[in-house]
């Protein structure tokens, strides 16, 4: 469902396929584990084909947990549709969203 790359201490998570309640929950748990060895995680949505509100809810939950840990979560490489979901729900104001992976890492 996703691959992880280590990029100078920052982890980049490449999510693939659908993000729904089930896959989103697994994604959240796995990403939270990554914070044991990283202070910052970037999620790339380049390979995400579909996402629904349940998946979005899991991403919000992930951010809440990350903020409690006082660590950093960034999102990047969203398709126009996924970006529109964040804009429509106002969550583009809540998350740090970047067009490219290099901007998110920079």
């Amino acid at each position, binding site marked *: 469902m996703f691959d992880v790359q280590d990029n100078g201490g920052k982890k980049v998570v490449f999510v693939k396929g*659908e993000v*729904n309640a089930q896959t989103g929950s697994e994604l959240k748990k796995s990403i939270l584990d990554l914070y044991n060895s990283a202070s910052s995680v970037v999620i790339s949505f380049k390979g995400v*084909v*579909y996402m*629904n*509100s*349940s998946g*979005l*809810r899991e991403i*919000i*939950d992930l951010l*809440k947990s990350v*903020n409690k840990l006082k660590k950093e979560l960034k999102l990047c490489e969203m398709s126009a*549709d996924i970006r529109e*979901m964040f804009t*429509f*729900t*106002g*969550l583009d*104001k*809540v998350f740090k969203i970047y067009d490219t992976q290099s901007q998110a890492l920079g």
Partner: protein
Amino acid sequence: MSYKFTRYGDFLKILVEQDAPFKDLEDAARGIVNLKDLKRISLDLKNCYYIQSKALAALIAMKKNSAKIGAEFIVTNVCDNIYQVMEMANLTSYFNIEEDFSSYTSSELVEKFFQPDYADRVSDFIAESYSDEFRAKLLEILEMPEPELKFYAILTMGKAHDYSAEERIKQELDSEIPLIVQASVLVLGWFGDSGSKEKIYGVLETGHEEVAEAAAASIALLSDDSDAARLGKLLTSQSKIIRTAAIQALTLINDDNCFELLKGALDNEKEDDVKAVLIRAISSFNRSGVSDILIKGLDSKSIKIREASASGLAKIKAKDKLEDIMSRITDNDAWVGYFAVKACGEICSASEADRLMSSYDKVDENVKLAIVEALGKIPGDFSDFYMSILDNGNEDIRKEVLSSLFHDNKENINAVALNLFENDSSWLVRYKALEILEQIRPEGFRDMLMSRLAVDNSKYVKEKIQAVLEEI
């Protein structure tokens, strides 16, 4: 002394008072060289609304003296007046100019919520640096009458995940001001406050455009298994705004129930613009049968529905329907052809592009232009085709061909762009040719520009020539 040095480790902030005498600024510049172990020096002009031009010399001295001790020098919180003075002195690129909200008090910061240029960035800054002081200030704002301040205060508490403010934010759902209700609805959705869902349905059902979308978004975020059916009932509402909001919520929830409800609504919906919203919504579902619905939409009498269907087919990259789409390129209705070509631009590979090129002579002007635009999106070299249609009578097509040719084949473009820049009757095409030549910079470019400046009859082309000449 009208300036103050404050040191934070290897960072020095120089805060200047309003109307600081230029001699004081010179004094501050001299003071820098005596400092050690600094990496960054910031001159903060947040209190200054004007600067004498001779004071700029002191700023230059500060930068030079910072360099002498190995520190980066930046100027922060520069107001428009001072920026203009710097601009007139050609100093805006000489200095690193940044924003530093940490210099402001919480009261000064929230005042910036009134300024649209600043409000979002200030809100982000407060959320990132959230403290009890900021929290108290934002709660204070909620007791004030200004809607803009309250709107940003609520959003900022939401961004900061301040759950302790949840009950207070809930009260604002009863506000008579849509802007405030909108912010409250969104934040309660982010907070996952299912207890407010009933009230948010109430907000959606008022049918106020400003808040219905926010309510749809939050209902989707707070949804459980019962919401699809409830939203489905709203698809038959008398209000177009409520129907549209329900479609948006169902699209976000995006499960099998929602898909069936939206498909059913498409059969019953009477208004074309809502049907177009439904088509777009359906194209967001990863379900079988979507491409069939979109293909059917391409034959609709409504241009909005055809457009939504074509963009949906492009979005889902409906390769399985490519033949169906291509067969519509030469449709009697040029708009059907136009949207079919638009979809092809996103779906076709280079080998399938032949069909687009061979259709070119059989279609109307708007479809011709769409073909050139679509080819520009398909990876491959179509320069032979572009060269064959460069004499088209439509200036938009010639302009688009020029762009595509530049993209596909750098060998041909020089001679073509030179020819069109000097001889094309359309200023739009000459302007585009000049933009391309500006990037290529052929031999003798400057002389050619000088001679064209004398004879070109378009003020836009002349202005562009002058700008390029200044640059080179």
